[in-house]
């Protein structure tokens, strides 16, 4: 019975040569694919529309705004110290750094900067660098996850947990801290904080070596990331990239090394992409810059903890920060966030409430390069490229 049906069907390939049949089988057509906004490899609600031809991506257009809350409009309705909790919710993996950027911008504008005590400055550096480690741990873990390596993620979150516990002991919050505020920090360090942090650093430092063994030098991982998504130094500057993405492209630029950053007395290196596994500026370079930066942050925290001795009793001025009046002037101020340069533009009008608050988010600026990099790459590489840029959508959309 089955034979009869087969025989009755016309043979569509009867007149074609085997070459022609093969070509017909391999023929592809252009297709639009929606990646996101709920795709796990987009780290939040990023939607990328891909124009594909078979496995090749011809064009990738990112669409953002799914998490838009118009945080800048809110900034025009509250006093600076009330705006600190909103900055937490921009880059929610680096709350401390966001608090610090806005607090310092306002302090510079009002002239309060000159009165900030030495102890406050050191505490801020300790927390900013601890948060940098925590943020890079998430980036490291989820990047492995994007590329199919589940285990590093669990290790990274185990270590991050210790940092979150330290933060919790200081301010009670684990993600949205509002600890660093205008004029200082909300409270002095808790008892034994310095000792526990030192213990953590001693525990953490060898772990980075483990990460390198586990993921950085893993053959499959290198195959997925080396020579993929290359951004040249010239392109990186032109597109206004910053942070590990800029340094991965071989540009040795870190705001912490510039005069007036508050890091002048600290001895640390700036890891830069060298093209060790492929070309300079590929995904692996951006990844390894983050992993190496964790060790540099450990160095900075150690030095800051040593300097904290003997500064006990110096007060923080956070109460003064609550009664600030902003002058009728404006400022633009940037700091080095884990993801790049986070800038705040603040314009006052003589009252306590600013006229305009604008945040220049590093994720927002870094994301604009995806359109350029995701041309003529394989579909699987798109996840590798977006992961290596390491965006947090809360801050892209604000």
């Amino acid at each position, binding site marked *: 019975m089955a034979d009869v049906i087969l025989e009755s069907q016309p043979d569509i390939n009867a007149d074609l040569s085997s070459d022609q049949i093969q070509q017909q089988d391999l023929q592809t057509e252009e297709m639009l694919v929606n990646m996101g906004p709920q795709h796990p490899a987009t780290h939040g609600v990023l939607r990328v529309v891909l124009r594909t031809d078979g496995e090749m991506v011809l064009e990738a257009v990112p669409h953002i705004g799914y998490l838009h809350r118009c945080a800048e409009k809110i900034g025009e309705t509250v006093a600076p110290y009330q705006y600190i909790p909103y900055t937490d919710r921009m880059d929610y993996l680096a709350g401390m750094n966001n608090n610090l950027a806005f607090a310092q911008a306002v302090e510079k504008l009002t002239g309060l900067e000159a009165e900030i005590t030495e102890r406050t400055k050191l505490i801020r550096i300790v927390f900013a660098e601890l948060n940098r480690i925590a943020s890079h741990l998430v980036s490291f873990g989820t990047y492995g996850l994007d590329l199919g390596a589940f285990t590093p993620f669990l290790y990274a979150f185990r270590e991050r947990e210790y940092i979150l516990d330290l933060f919790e002991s200081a301010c009670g919050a684990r993600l949205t801290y509002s600890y660093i505020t205008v004029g200082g920090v909300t409270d002095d360090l808790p008892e034994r904080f310095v000792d526990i942090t030192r213990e953590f650093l001693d525990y953490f430092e060898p772990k980075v070596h483990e990460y390198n063994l586990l993921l950085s030098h893993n053959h499959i991982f290198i195959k997925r990331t080396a020579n993929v998504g290359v951004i040249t130094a010239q392109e990186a500057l032109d597109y*206004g990239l910053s942070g590990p993405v800029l340094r991965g492209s071989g540009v*040795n630029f*870190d*705001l912490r090394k510039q005069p007036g950053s508050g890091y002048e007395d600290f001895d640390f290196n700036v890891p830069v992409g060298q093209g060790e596994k492929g070309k300079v500026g590929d995904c692996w370079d951006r990844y390894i810059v983050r992993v190496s930066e964790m060790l540099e942050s450990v160095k900075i925290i150690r030095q800051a903890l040593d300097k904290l001795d003997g500064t006990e009793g110096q007060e923080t001025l956070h109460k003064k920060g609550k009664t600030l009046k902003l002058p009728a002037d*404006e400022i*633009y101020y940037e700091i080095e966030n884990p993801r790049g340069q986070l800038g705040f533009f603040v314009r006052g009008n003589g009252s306590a409430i600013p006229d305009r608050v*604008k945040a*220049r988010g590093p994720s927002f*600026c870094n994301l*604009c390069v995806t359109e350029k990099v995701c041309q003529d790459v394989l579909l699987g590489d798109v996840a590798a490229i977006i992961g290596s840029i390491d965006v947090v959508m809360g801050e892209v959309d604000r």
Partner: protein
Amino acid sequence: MAPEEIAEILKETFGASITDTEFETAHPRVVVTADAWPEVAAFLRDDERLQLNFLRSISAVDYLEDDKFAAVYDLASYRPGKTDSDAWALTNAVAVQVWTDRSDPHIPSVAHVWRAADWHEREAYDLMGVIFDNHPDSVEGLNGFHPRRILCPDDWEGHPLQKDYAFPMEYHGIPAVTELNQTRPIH
């Protein structure tokens, strides 16, 4: 190079296009007319002495009482150190302010000078309503071409950061919450 010196160089080259300078502030800036701005921008980037190769941010500001918008461009020059292992230095940081009328806000786009301006200008149009002419990602609206919106939906009405913005009471059948029941600006 100090902002004062940069302003001197610009005044020598462009004369009347540099209408004002402000240095007694935490944010030293040079005021450039909208018409001359793309030319000035290309000069700022390419001139040997300045080399402002990095656009840090574009902040659009609403001056409701003056009936004007301002776009503030924060620029910097990143230069390599003497050897490869030296840190790059940030020099020549300066801001450029471009004014435009509130009723017909047009500023020429500089996305061809710094690619970073692409998204910043789209954001400034979306949230403040400043139209950047000749933007590479433009769409046609009721009043000619404007940059494509970036954060708000494409069919959103108005520009939220304007001081006289009234929050819409309804969007595609979704009602606004009662706390937002205000037709006057927050200030």
